[in-house]
Structure formats: structure tokens, C-alpha cells
């Protein structure tokens, strides 16, 4: 029930060795206990007892038949009636010896029972109220009453009679309330030093208990604060709970020491003290397991459950059984703790040693306490308090040291981690910088590569465009040659004939036939005009060819679109014919003379028209080849003015364009011509050129019937 009482207080006031006495108890000052300055009269032999109440029983000369031998230390709940009330009388004959000659004889009553003290039949004092004077029963609040000085003459015999009324305690086990105070102090004789001794003890006790409560409370507050700041630290919570249990134990222990405390308050505080100390004891093995990073084995768990049951049972059993239960339980817990300490010994490190030290110190102090209590019972009580302080505070303080050391370790770990992180991040940074450098270099390299590739592509593109131009030009070459050759031939022929005519003219001049000379001169003039005409024609053709092969300047100029169409139609036609003499096609034109000149980039649009015409001739030629003589190829070029635009249509009756390639014909490099025959750029470039002019290019086709390409150009 009361581990603290059992462990400390019982021993605190020493173990008394009572000797058998005669029916007259002789008292001597030598009998004063050195520790507590009292003669524990209640424990002396010589007491007789009678249940019930009669004030006559206090008389000096009384027939004591019917009285039985019973000491106040031997009362129990057996004396109580069905209402739980126990009432009875004690009598003893004492004889203070001569050593009391110069001393007063002081009585102390220390019990929850209401007591009336009689000396030789005379009521000396009442403690609490037994109810004899008609007033209701009142328990005796026994915690420190000044001793009562009774005028006794040394050498004389006196009858001391005690009338007491007590009740059974409300909580189990069934016992008298008095039994909860040590019955041996029921009545005692106090030495003159007693008061100063008690005051001293009380002051010391209060001081120490205050220190214990303060230390444990501060520690538990500290641990709880730390825990609330670090919710993840479950060990810290366990430490805080354990320390709180210690603090509360100490607090309720201190409350029990309060002067004038009632039995009920005492019981509640005592119960609380027991509960919290048991909780603290039970938590300790768990705390050790957690701190040592061990696992609680199943047998130990079961054992701890048994201990818990034992602790609970303790509240309901008698003092003796309870004390045995508590003793065994406490010992078991000490053994469990020692088991964990010993089995973890080699693995222990750092802050864990603080706990070990604390526990071992605690154990050391309690052993020291028992040792001194048993073997040197006379030693001064402050040492007991010191040892108790060592026992009580070692563990909570070791927890503080543990937490502090853990924090140090933790901070060290954090610092190391931080250092590592910093180092790592610096390495990473450096790495990243290097990576960036490498990347940058790679990007630079690739950019350069891409730039080169782009340049190459650009030049390739311009080469391609040029080659496309040249390809279409190549198709024209024969036509151009044909076109130039004819005027040159005319020039030759006309000049030759003119030469002959001049000779003829000379002859006629020498003959004086001037009429004839005039006719010849007219012929020569006509010839010369023709020479001039054909020379200019050849000149125009060459210029046109040059213009076509020249790079486009992109400058728009007023252009006769009809003339352009006509020229390219003929050039293309003759070109094809020059290559393939067997080819023949009917050329049809329908030019709208109202168009006039429109603003276009001559070379560009020329190329588009040429491209379309070339394609038209190509397809009709292909069809003729495959279908034979009966097929009559036709290419029709038409110009037309519509509102604010000009439409140029090139129609052929060739093979037409298959539907599945219709969406590809304007893509670059797409061609249906055999490899090497076409660049695949013609229509693509044409499309771009027409778009650049803000115009449109459309195609309508029907397989095996022909195609119609229509260019629409805005008139700007």
C-alpha cells in the first residue's frame, strides 16, 4: 500500500527492540531512543485491554478480571462492531525511576483514533473527541502535537489508562484507521529534546521533500517542454512521464506531511503517492529498453503485467501481504533493470551511460540506506535524508544528464550532418558548375555545328534553288538554241543575199542603169531591216535567258504577263521538241489583252509559269509515249482579268495527278519524275513565290483527263 512508508519511513524511525517487562513498567531516561527521543510506551509489555466503555475503568484500584493482555500496537479491525466502530480501554502501570528526578514526564499520543488519557483515574487530556462528554466523535489529527507534560513523581507507580474510539478505514483492506499511522507511536514518552528534535526533523524533512518536489517538478516541466518542441522524440515523452510520476509522488508525499491533515486527505495523498511511485517503477524498465535500443521480450512483458497486477492487488490486501508484494515487485523491477544494464553493458555508449550511472547510484544509495539503518540505527537522521535524496534524485537527474548529453550528441550529429550537407552541396555546386560548363561547351559546340549545318543547308538550299532554276533552264536550252539559231540564220541569209545585191547594184551603177540600182537598194534596205529585226530578236532571247538564270532581286516591275506566257510557252515547247523530235503538241492560247502590265517580280513569276508549262508538256508527252500516235497532246495557256486580280491557267490533257499524291505535290523534293529528271522543287518554289506575291495557286485534276493549274495574282 505505501511503498514509501514501507521503504523509508518504517526504517526512518528505526527498528525498536522491545524487551519483556513486568506488569509495572519501569521507565528510565536511558530508555529514550537516541534517534527519535522517545520511549515507545505503546509497544511495551504490561498493557491490558477491555472492549467497551466505562469511565470507572480509569480508576487506580480496579478489579482487572475480564481484562486481557493486549498492547495498543496490537489493535485491529476485529475490535470493531458491525458499524465499524471500535472502542476500548488500555491500562498500564508505570514507574518512572529516579533518572526523571530533574526531568518532566511528557506524553505524546499519535493516532487517528480519538483518545482520552487518564492518570490514576484522572482525565489528563483528550485527543480528538471520544464522545464521552456528549459531543460527537472527532478523529485525532495526530501529526505533531506538542507533548503533554504530566506531573509524576519519580519512584511512584501510576496507572495510565487510555480510552480510545476508532473506526474501520473506508477503503480496503479491512483495518482500523489507526493502523495507518504506526501503532507503536500510539502513546510514547518524549524526552526534553523531543520538541527540538521533531522541529528539526520536520524542517529537514520539509526542506528535503521540497527540494525533491522542486527538482522533479522542474525536470518534468523541462522534459515536457522539450517533448512538446520535439513531438517525434517518443523517448523524451517517456522520460517526461517517468519524471512527472516522480514529481507527483514527491508532491503527494509532501502533502502527507502537512500539519493537521485529516485522515481522508491523508488516505487520498497516500493512495496517489502509491499510484505514482508504482507507475514510475513500472515505466523504468520500458525507459531502459527504449534508451538502450533493446526490445522488451515477451516473458518480461508478461512479468511486468504480473507486477502491475501485484501493485494493484496491494491496494486491497493487508499491510503485511501488501508489503511483501511491494517488496518482491520492487526487487523484480530492480532485477529487470539490472538485467538490461548488464546485457547491454558492452554496447552502451555516450548518453546511455548517464542512465546506467543514475540507476546504479540510486541502487547504491538505497543499499547504503538499508545498510546504515540496519547496522547503525543510531546515526543522525539527516544522513538518511541525504541518502534518500541520492536515491530519489539520482535517476531523474541522470535523465536530465541523459537528455543534455543526447542533445549534445544530437547537436554534434546535426552539425556533422550540416557539415556534410554543406560539403555535399558544395561538391554538388561544383559538380553542377562543371556540368554547366560541360553543357555550355556542348551547347556551344552543337550551336556551332548547327550553325555550320544551317549555313550548309542554306547554301545547299540556294544551290538547290539554283539547280532547280538551271534544271528548268536546261529544259529550255534546246528551245533557246532553236530560237536563237533561227534569227541568226535569217541574219546570215539576209546579209549574204544583200552582199550579192550590192554586187549586182555595182554592176548596174557601172552600166548607168540607175532605176535598177534604186530597186536593188530598196531590196537591200528591206534586207537590212530584216537583219536588224532578227538580230534584235536573238538579243532579246539571250537577255531573257540571262534574266531567268540570274538571281531574283525581288523587285517588282510592270510586266506584260501575256508576252511572258507566250515566250515561255514557245521556249518550253521548242525545248521539248528539240530533245524529242517526235514530240508534237497542239498549243492553244487565250490571252486577255485588257490585262495590260501588272507589277510582279519578273524572274519569279516567269519561273512559275515556265514550271507549269514544262510540267504540262512533260505530262502530255508521257501520255503520248504510253498511249501512242492516236493521242493528240494539247497544252492550253489562258490569261484572264477578274476584278482586281489576274488568273493564269495552264491546262493539259495529260495523265492527271493521282488523288493519293494530291496533297504532296507542293511539298519540297516531291517528284514523280524518274531519279535525276526532276528536283522536286518546282511546284514547292512556285507555291512560295505565288504566296509571296499575295496570290494563290490552285490545281484541279482528273486522272487520265488532265490537270489545270491556276495562278491568281492580285493587281497592285
Amino acid at each position: 500500500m505505501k511503498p514509501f512508508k514501507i521503504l523509508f519511513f518504517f526504517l526512518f524511525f528505526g527498528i525498536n527492540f522491545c524487551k519483556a517487562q513486568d506488569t509495572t513498567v519501569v521507565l528510565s531516561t536511558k530508555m529514550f531512543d537516541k534517534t527519535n527521543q522517545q520511549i515507545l510506551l505503546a509497544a511495551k509489555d504490561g498493557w491490558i485491554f477491555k472492549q467497551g466503555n466505562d469511565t470507572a475503568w480509569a480508576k487506580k484500584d480496579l478489579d482487572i478480571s475480564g481484562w486481557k493482555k493486549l498492547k495498543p500496537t496490537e489493535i485491529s479491525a476485529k475490535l470493531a462492531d458491525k458499524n465499524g466502530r471500535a472502542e476500548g480501554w488500555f491500562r498500564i502501570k508505570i514507574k518512572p525511576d529516579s533518572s526523571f528526578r530533574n526531568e518532566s514526564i511528557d506524553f505524546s499520543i499519535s493516532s487517528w483514533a480519538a483518545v482520552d488519557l487518564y492518570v490514576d483515574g484522572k482525565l489528563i487530556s483528550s485527543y480528538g473527541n471520544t464522545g464521552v462528554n456528549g459531543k460527537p466523535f472527532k478523529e485525532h489529527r495526530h501529526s505533531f502535537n506538542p507533548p503533554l507534560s504530566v506531573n509524576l513523581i519519580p519512584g511512584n507507580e501510576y496507572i495510565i489508562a487510555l480510552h480510545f474510539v476508532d473506526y474501520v478505514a473506508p477503503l480496503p483492506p479491512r483495518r482500523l484507521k489507526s493502523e495507518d499511522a504506526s501503532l507503536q507511536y500510539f502513546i510514547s514518552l518524549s524526552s526534553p529534546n523531543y520538541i527540538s528534535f521533531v522541529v528539526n526533523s520536520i524542517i529537514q524533512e520539509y526542506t528535503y521533500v521540497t527540494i525533491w518536489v522542486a527538482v522533479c517538478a522542474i525536470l518534468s516541466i523541462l522534459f515536457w517542454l522539450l517533448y512538446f518542441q520535439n513531438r517525434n522524440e517518443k523517448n523524451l515523452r517517456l522520460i517526461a512521464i517517468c519524471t512527472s510520476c516522480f514529481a507527483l509522488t514527491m508532491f503527494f508525499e509532501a502533502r502527507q506531511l502537512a500539519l493537521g491533515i485529516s485522515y481522508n486527505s491523508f488516505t487520498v495523498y497516500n493512495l496517489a503517492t502509491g499510484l505514482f511511485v508504482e507507475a514510475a517503477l513500472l515505466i523504468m524498465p520500458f525507459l531502459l529498453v527504449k534508451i538502450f535500443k533493446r526490445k522488451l521480450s515477451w516473458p518480461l512483458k508478461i512479468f511486468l503485467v504480473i507486477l502491475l497486477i501485484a501493485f494493484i492487488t496491494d491496494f486491497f490486501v493487508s499491510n503485511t501481504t501488501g508489503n511483501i508484494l511491494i517488496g518482491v515487485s520492487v526487487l523484480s523491477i530492480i532485477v529487470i533493470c539490472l538485467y538490461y544494464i548488464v546485457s547491454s553493458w558492452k554496447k552502451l555508449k555516450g548518453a546511455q551511460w548517464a542512465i546506467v550511472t543514475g540507476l546504479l547510484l540510486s541502487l547504491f544509495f538505497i543499499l547504503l540506506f538499508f545498510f546504515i539503518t540496519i547496522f547503525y540505527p543510531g546515526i543522525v537522521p539527516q544522513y538518511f535524508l541525504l541518502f534518500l535524496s541520492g536515491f530519489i534524485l539520482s535517476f531523474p537527474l541522470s535523465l536530465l544528464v541523459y537528455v543534455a548529453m543526447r542533445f549534445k550528441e544530437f547537436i554534434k550529429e546535426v552539425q556533422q550532418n550540416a557539415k556534410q550537407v554543406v560539403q555535399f552541396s558544395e561538391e554538388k555546386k561544383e559538380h553542377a558548375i562543371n556540368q554547366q560548363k560541360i553543357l555550355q561547351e556542348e551547347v556551344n559546340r552543337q550551336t556551332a555545328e548547327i550553325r555550320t549545318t544551317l549555313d550548309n543547308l542554306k547554301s545547299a538550299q540556294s544551290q538547290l534553288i539554283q539547280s532547280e532554276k538551271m534544271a528548268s533552264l536546261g529544259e529550255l536550252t534546246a528551245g533557246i538554241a532553236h530560237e536563237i539559231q533561227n534569227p541568226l540564220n535569217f541574219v546570215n541569209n539576209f546579209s549574204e543575199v544583200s552582199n550579192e545585191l550590192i554586187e549586182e547594184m555595182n554592176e548596174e551603177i557601172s552600166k548607168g542603169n540607175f532605176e535598177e540600182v534604186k530597186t536593188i537598194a530598196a531590196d537591200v534596205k528591206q534586207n537590212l531591216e530584216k537583219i536588224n529585226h532578227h538580230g534584235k530578236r536573238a538579243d532579246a532571247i539571250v537577255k531573257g535567258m540571262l534574266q531567268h538564270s540570274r538571281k531574283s532581286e525581288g523587285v517588282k516591275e510592270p510586266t506584260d504577263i501575256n508576252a511572258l506566257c507566250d515566250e515561255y510557252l514557245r521556249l518550253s515547247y521548242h525545248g521539248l521538241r528539240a530533245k524529242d523530235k517526235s514530240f508534237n503538241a497542239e498549243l492553244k492560247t487565250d490571252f486577255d489583252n485588257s490585262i495590260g502590265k501588272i507589277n510582279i517580280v519578273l524572274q519569279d513569276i516567269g519561273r512559275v509559269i515556265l514550271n507549269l508549262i514544262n510540267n504540262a508538256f512533260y505530262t502530255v508527252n508521257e501520255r503520248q509515249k504510253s498511249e501512242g500516235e492516236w493521242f493528240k497532246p494539247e497544252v492550253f495557256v489562258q490569261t484572264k482579268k477578274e476584278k482586281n486580280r489576274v488568273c493564269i491557267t495552264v491546262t493539259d490533257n495529260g495523265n492527271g495527278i493521282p488523288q493519293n499524291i494530291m496533297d504532296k505535290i507542293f511539298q519540297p523534293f516531291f517528284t514523280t519524275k524518274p531519279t535525276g529528271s526532276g528536283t522536286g522543287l518546282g511546284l514547292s518554289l512556285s507555291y512560295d513565290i505565288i504566296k509571296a506575291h499575295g496570290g494563290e495557286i490552285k490545281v484541279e485534276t482528273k486522272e487520265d483527263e488532265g490537270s489545270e493549274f491556276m495562278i491568281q495574282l492580285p493587281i497592285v
Partner: protein
Amino acid sequence: MNKLLVVDDSIDLLEAMEIILSQKGYTVKTLPDCNTIFKDIDDFRPDLLILDIFLAGRDGRELCKELRKAIANKYLCIIIFSASPKALENYASYGADDFLEKPFGINILVDKIESVLNNCKGKSINVF
């Protein structure tokens, strides 16, 4: 004064031939196409036909064959000419008397005309 009929699709050539051959002393008629050729031959009654092979819409060689069959009353001398030497091969099989490759020098043409006219004299059939 021999009469020459020239058929070609090039207006420039026809013009040049007309001028030059006239100056050489021939009576010259030119046709840009062969649509009315039979009527023209009937009207003009040429001594010599100078015929291009590649005419718009018509092959000179085929025309030559037709003419040989159709015109029985008078032997018509025919010279075919073309820019394509290949087309001139086997000119005799079409019924032509000679051939000439374009482009040509005017004197070569005149020589050919004279030579063909001389050769043809014996062949002429005079119905009337």
C-alpha cells in the same frame, strides 16, 4: 519564172523566204499551215513545194504522201525540210524529191531548188 510554195509554221521563216527567194527571181507564195493546201496548190499551181515536217496539227511527211497520191495532173516537185535530221531520213519514201536541214544557207536552198526543178522536168505530166 518558177513558182514556189513554202509551208512552215514559223511566220519569220516564211517572211524571210518570201523576200529572199523573190529577190532570187522566184514567184513565192507562203502558207503558215496546211489547212487549205490543196486549194492553194490548185490556185497557185506551184512548180515546187517546200514543206516543213513539223506543222501545227499535221505531220509534213504524211501530207507529202497524200499529195503524191492526190495530185496526178502535174508532177509537183517537193523539198521537205526540218530541224530534225532524223525526220528527214527516208525522204524518198514519202515521195519527196530532196530534203534540207534547218537552218540552211539561202544559196544551198537555191541550189537545191534549181537541181530539183531540173530533175523534175522530165517527170512533169501535162494533162492539158
